[in-house]
């Protein structure tokens, strides 16, 4: 408990310092609970998520960093490795390939990388995975872009 708190506090300081360095990630800690974090990440360019801002919710377990944080998308996203309804993310480093050397910041980076390189062979969103697996990249792109416009972009006018 004490350890995870100390470590999260370190990360908090690091985030404050690096705020300007990485414009794609905005990591914010809950005002009252250091075990709850939210992040805003920008959709990577040259992907259907470009221009969108996606919100992530982090729930850090007590044994952190020995156990990975639980991360899910709060913003709806059409991606083969993200559950469409719950926002759950299928990413090895959040499950069996976790390492205590990862930080919340680096997890955000890994999620951005996952958005740019979906893994249709282990899908949480079957529709999206099937589109990619059947080679319909165009169909997938347009679906993903539509959901990005609908959910992840500030409404115009």
């Amino acid at each position, binding site marked *: 408990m004490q350890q995870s708190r*100390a470590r999260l506090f*370190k990360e908090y300081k690091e985030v404050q310092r690096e705020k300007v360095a990485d414009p794609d990630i905005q990591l914010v800690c809950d005002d009252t609970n250091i075990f709850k974090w939210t992040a805003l990440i920008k959709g990577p360019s040259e992907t259907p998520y470009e221009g969108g801002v996606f919100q992530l919710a982090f729930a850090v377990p007590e044994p952190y960093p*020995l156990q*990975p944080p639980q991360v899910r998308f709060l913003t709806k996203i059409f991606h083969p490795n993200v559950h469409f309804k719950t926002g759950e993310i299928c990413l090895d480093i959040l*499950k*069996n390939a976790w*390492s*205590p050397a990862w930080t919340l910041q680096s997890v955000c980076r890994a999620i951005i990388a996952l958005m740019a390189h979906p893994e249709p062979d282990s899908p949480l969103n079957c529709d999206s995975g099937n589109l990619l697996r059947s080679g319909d990249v165009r169909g997938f792109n347009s679906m993903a872009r539509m959901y990005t416009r609908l959910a992840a972009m500030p409404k115009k006018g």
Partner: protein
Amino acid sequence: MSKRILCKFFAHGACLKGEHCEFSHDWKDPTNNVCTYYQRGICSYGSRCRYEHVKASRPHPSASSSSALPPAETDLSPLPSSCFKQAWDLDSLDTFNPATAAAKPEEQPICSYAAAGDCPRADECPHIHGNICPTCGKRCLHPFRLEEREEHKIACEKKHKQLQALTLSQEIECCVCLERVLSKPTPAERKFGLLTECDHAFCIGCIRNWRSSSPSTGMDVNSTLRACPICRKLSYFVVPSVIWFSAPEEKKEIIDNYREKLRSIDCKHFNFGDGNCPFGTSCFYKHTVKPGSYAWKFHRPPPRRPRPSGSNFSDVDTLVNMIGNIISEGEYGTIGFEDSDDDELTTTDMMMLLMHMDHAYHDGRLEEVVLRHLDAEDGQTVIAKDIRLSDFLEDMHI
């Protein structure tokens, strides 16, 4: 004889010994006013001494046999004359310089003030000032004692290196807790945990915690827990060290020293031949066979008693996971296997597998099993065999 000399204490008005005093309590007897230090050769008070600085002209107990002056050594002053030359003893230095100068230069000590850094007498110092040591910068190299010079140089360089390494180590952060390892609150935490296969820095507590943490969410023991959290290289044990290394040789030295130390400690699993050490001949700890123990009598480890009841393992994966748990649990998680060599690992893993088969009968796949100590030299040492599934099933009322 001594009764004829007036007691010093009596003269001052109070002698505790009273009439048993060996010195005279009669005012008529003369006092002994001869300086005993002067008799032995030096008196630091010099001309200001309140006792008489005369050559022993009359016999008295303490100076009866002493001759007048050093360096002619007498029975009463068995110490070499150089011992009396103390730095504060300025008078004597002047007096006895010629005596010391006569000795061979390599027998003279060097000025300890200069060796410590600063001699107030500088050029006028009657002692030899040592040469400057290139490492510590102090005048502590004896110009005439070659062996001593070399010894000092080697020791000094070693110390210097250690100090440098310690300074460098101060800066190093643990990648798990993100804190400086040597700035942790308690001394026990201020230790690095070195992984054998890579050079990433952790505190010993963090890396041991990680390696022994339970693989809850399907983490694989070999590819995740026992791998370096940063580069994922597999290391079989962690070596504690108070200092971080800067060269591969230093790391090797730290690891070798650690294993050397463990080799002198008796293995608690082996228990002098009465216990069963899961690491067999690969164990880091000492396996001493006590006369009369099981291993002494039968030349094999005692059989492991199968657990009377246990969880029902349903597949081989769980079994392997479980063995992984056993490997990574406790202190053996950190110093589990001797070699990173692949062959060695397989045999050791297999040994572990077989030794723990007794847990796995419940899945119904194994009818009988021979537990072999595969790591023994001939590979034939049988630990236990013919443990039947049916026995278990009866116990479990299935």
